[in-house]
């Protein structure tokens, strides 16, 4: 077997071990841990890129390595690396837990990497749980008042219940198709969806995945976790894990592809409700992270638009949008955690006068926010428009109309952020940025703009990738 097929996973396994040993050490070495983690993450990204064009199946066809999975692995590696970048000062995490913090980030990444390539029910389940459990632990890792544990416990139980559902559903699917291999299941789904058992199975399975993506009605954890978790952890949840969730949903949604009208209608309704609820509730939020949580619910709705089409273009746009979302959302979170110097939760007003405290961060914030709001010339705008286009191609007129109107609503709360950053007078002194942060800012800004204006390469990549899962 070609090691490179399993390369990234192996690497992250090793990285996890290294960090594990760091965590065992008695005397705390924050700096060394950080640099080690950062270096490893960077290397991991390189590895993931290196394995980008691997292709093959391993572990008795339970594990499929194709462009689709590899793109997402690269994205995940990137996400991890970026999160590491902003983890320079983990103000809200006990120094002695830093090693564990990095360790769990790594295991989570590992889990998600396995998730995006696994094409066998059990593997999917195990990978999913591996990634989820790391996050369950990361959330309450934050020090301070009870909010973190409350968030943690809610996250845990909502997650546990929905994965329980999923498992139950997988059971039915297994029973109905006598197989645990997607490649064998998907062809058999159509005739089988006539029977309630298959239907329930499918529905419950999707429940577990929607939980990851925080689609209504499985979104309840998001606001609490976003608010309760440490900024860096939330950043990771908001970027990398979302991308992984999109990937696995794109794979599994094919189970329902042939189901037909009422199933897609159900998904349409879920997507509409998610985006509307997310946007409306986000309007009234005061806490920046909580607002972003609701906006992530809304964006889950947008991504679903792409999924619902069950067509190459739709999937491609979904992939494009997932990657775009990773970049733009991370940009915003980076600004957030740079501004929240001692890791506290940030009220939107606390962005006051950012324009004078740090013009560079302000630029990133504006671009990130506008990208999230779908304002050109940004990656977010292009992604959203491509999603709408593919949906319209399948004739979802109302879905597009509502989505577009939702875009307007969302603009309101995004502009409130801009308002705070640009208009309110500063209360604190200027922010000092290290040169890597500056570099990171410029990179992200240019990424947002460049891929927004010249989307062709990425779109083509996504199209070739999604041909693998269709």
């Amino acid at each position, binding site marked *: 077997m070609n090691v490179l097929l399993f390369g990234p996973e192996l690497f992250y396994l090793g990285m996890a071990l290294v960090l594990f040993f760091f965590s065992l050490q008695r005397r705390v070495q924050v700096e060394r841990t950080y640099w080690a983690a950062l270096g490893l993450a960077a290397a991991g990204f390189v590895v993931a890129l290196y394995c980008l064009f691997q292709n093959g199946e391993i572990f008795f066809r339970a594990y499929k390595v194709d462009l689709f999975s590899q793109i997402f692995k690269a994205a995940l590696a990137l996400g991890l690396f970026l999160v590491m970048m902003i983890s320079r000062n983990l103000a809200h995490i006990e120094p002695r837990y830093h090693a564990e913090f990095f360790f769990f980030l790594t295991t989570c990444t590992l889990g998600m990497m396995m998730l995006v390539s696994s094409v066998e029910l059990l593997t999917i389940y195990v990978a999913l749980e591996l990634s989820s459990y790391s996050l369950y632990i990361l959330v309450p890792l934050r020090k301070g008042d009870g909010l973190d544990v409350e968030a943690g416990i809610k996250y845990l139980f909502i997650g546990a219940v929905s994965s329980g559902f999923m498992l139950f559903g997988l059971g039915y699917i297994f029973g109905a198709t006598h197989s645990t291999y997607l490649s064998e299941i998907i062809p058999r789904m159509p005739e089988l969806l006539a029977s309630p058992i298959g239907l329930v199975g499918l529905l419950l399975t999707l429940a577990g995945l929607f939980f990851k993506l925080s689609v209504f009605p499985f979104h309840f954890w998001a606001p609490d976790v976003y608010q309760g978790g440490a900024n860096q952890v939330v950043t990771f949840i908001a970027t990398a894990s979302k991308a992984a969730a999109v990937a696995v949903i794109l794979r599994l949604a094919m189970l329902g592809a042939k189901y037909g009208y009422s199933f897609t209608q159900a998904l349409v309704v879920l997507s509409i409700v998610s985006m509307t609820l997310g946007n409306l509730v986000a309007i009234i939020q005061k806490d920046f992270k909580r607002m972003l949580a609701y906006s992530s619910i809304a964006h889950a709705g947008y991504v679903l638009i792409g999924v619902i089409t069950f067509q190459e273009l739709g999937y491609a746009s979904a992939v494009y949008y997932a990657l775009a979302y990773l970049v733009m959302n991370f940009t915003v979170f980076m600004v957030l955690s740079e501004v929240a110097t001692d890791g506290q939760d940030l009220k939107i007003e606390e962005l006051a006068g950012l324009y004078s405290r740090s013009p560079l961060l302000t630029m990133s914030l504006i671009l990130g926010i506008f990208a999230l709001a779908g304002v050109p010339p940004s990656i977010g705008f292009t992604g959203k428009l491509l999603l709408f286009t593919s949906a319209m191609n399948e004739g979802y007129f109302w879905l597009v109309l509502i989505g577009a109107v939702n875009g307007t609503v969302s603009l309101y709360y995004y502009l409130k952020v801009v*308002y705070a950053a640009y208009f309110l007078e500063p209360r604190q002194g200027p922010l000092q940025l290290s040169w890597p942060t500056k570099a990171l800012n410029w990179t992200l800004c240019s990424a947002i703009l460049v891929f927004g204006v010249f989307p062709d390469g990425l779109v083509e990549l996504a199209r070739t990738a999604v041909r693998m899962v269709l």
Partner: protein
Amino acid sequence: MTEHLASFPYLSCMLLSPVAGLFILLFLKEEQRTLIRGVSLVSAGMAFALSIYTFVAYDKQLGGLQFVEKYEWVKGFGITYFVGVEGMNAPLLLLTGIVIFTGVLTMWELQDRVKEYFIFQLALVTGVFGVFMSYDLFFFFLFYEIAVVPMYILILIWGSTRKEYAAMKLTLYLMAGSGLIIPGMLLLYSSSGIATFNMVALHAVQFSPWIQKVVFVLLLLGFGVLAAVWPFHTWSPVGHVAAPTAVSMLHAGVLMKLGSFAILRVAMYLCPQGFQYWAEFMGLLAAVGIVYGVFVGLAQTDLKYVIGYSSVSHMGIVGLGLATGTVDGLNGAVFQMFAHGVMTALFFSAVGFIYDRTHTREIHELGGFSKIMPVASAFFITAALCGAGVPGMASFWAELLVLIAAVQVFPVRGLAAIAALVVGALFALRVVQNTFFNKPNPKFVHFEDVSPFLGLPRMILIGFLIFFGIFPQTMVSLIKTSIVPFIKGM
């Protein structure tokens, strides 16, 4: 439509010169004021020069689409970068050039956060140029939004009365408009069968009447918001009042034209049958807007509100011209877009000058300004007379064409519009009298008049107004070259 490829990428240069300026500004220090102003002036000036060039160099005999540039952009979705110039957008490109150039000069005295100001202004104007020149729906819409969004920050920071409210209202309102535009244009895209955003190609497609009706009304309302079509106009007076001078100039002068231009270029061009179906409705809204605007303007006490409502009325004339669907009407409408753009720019730059000195726009607080600053008042009075439809000014001819066409197609609405001219004159002169005549307000007597340098942009604007007022043919003959085939194609 025949397309003639450009020998040299004039349009891309026109589009990129503000962008280039913007990027240079990014790396300048806030302290280097003069350098910042210089850079923005140069980039604006280049765009201005290029716009003049395209206006003059457009070959009327050849006709069709000239200076065309076309590149595949996103193959998967049939997006092409496709820009060109024809009779109907050449004047508007010129208008944009004029307004941005004069706008930069007008804001020369700006002291507060100069760098950011010019960055956003250049970003905005890039969008405007883009909309006027692109023939690909995707880029059209992209630039459309680029042109709208910076307005929020521009008003929020450099604006005046009730700016938070105004900025938010304006942005959300316009974005709500694009919430209707997206489904409309995507419906066209998807139902065309040929997966392309290329407008010229889409024009060739015969859409089913049902689709055309739906799409047209969506686009009409969506773009109509930006064109301040009654009753979607309320953002515009509020926005104008709040916005800083040059932004008001750009906004009333150019941005509102984006809406009407888009109605012409996208809605009417791509769904002719839809237009036939909705023309009555469109004409009605426009006529109501014309009458309504002047009457509401009559009751205003804030100079900028007055101008805002007069814009509502004048844009109504544009709408009426479009609704007629005749060659005269469309010529008039496009001409009016240009004329009104220059005129309002002049209005706002004059008001801005006075406001910067006196910090009030309440008509009853002002007065006797002809005594205090004769030149500044002369600028305003010129604009006011132009607004009152005095011959010898560009807008007279535009209104003439539109009104004649309108009476022909919708007699009652046309006559109502003509009658509104009286009230228009009344309120224009009323403002002039109360602001500039009578005894000067002792508070303001110490202000000195416009310096020649600051007078320059206003003189440029007046120059264009009068030139096209005396030689309207130079403009109309150009516009005709595209309108006549346009009507044939409908």
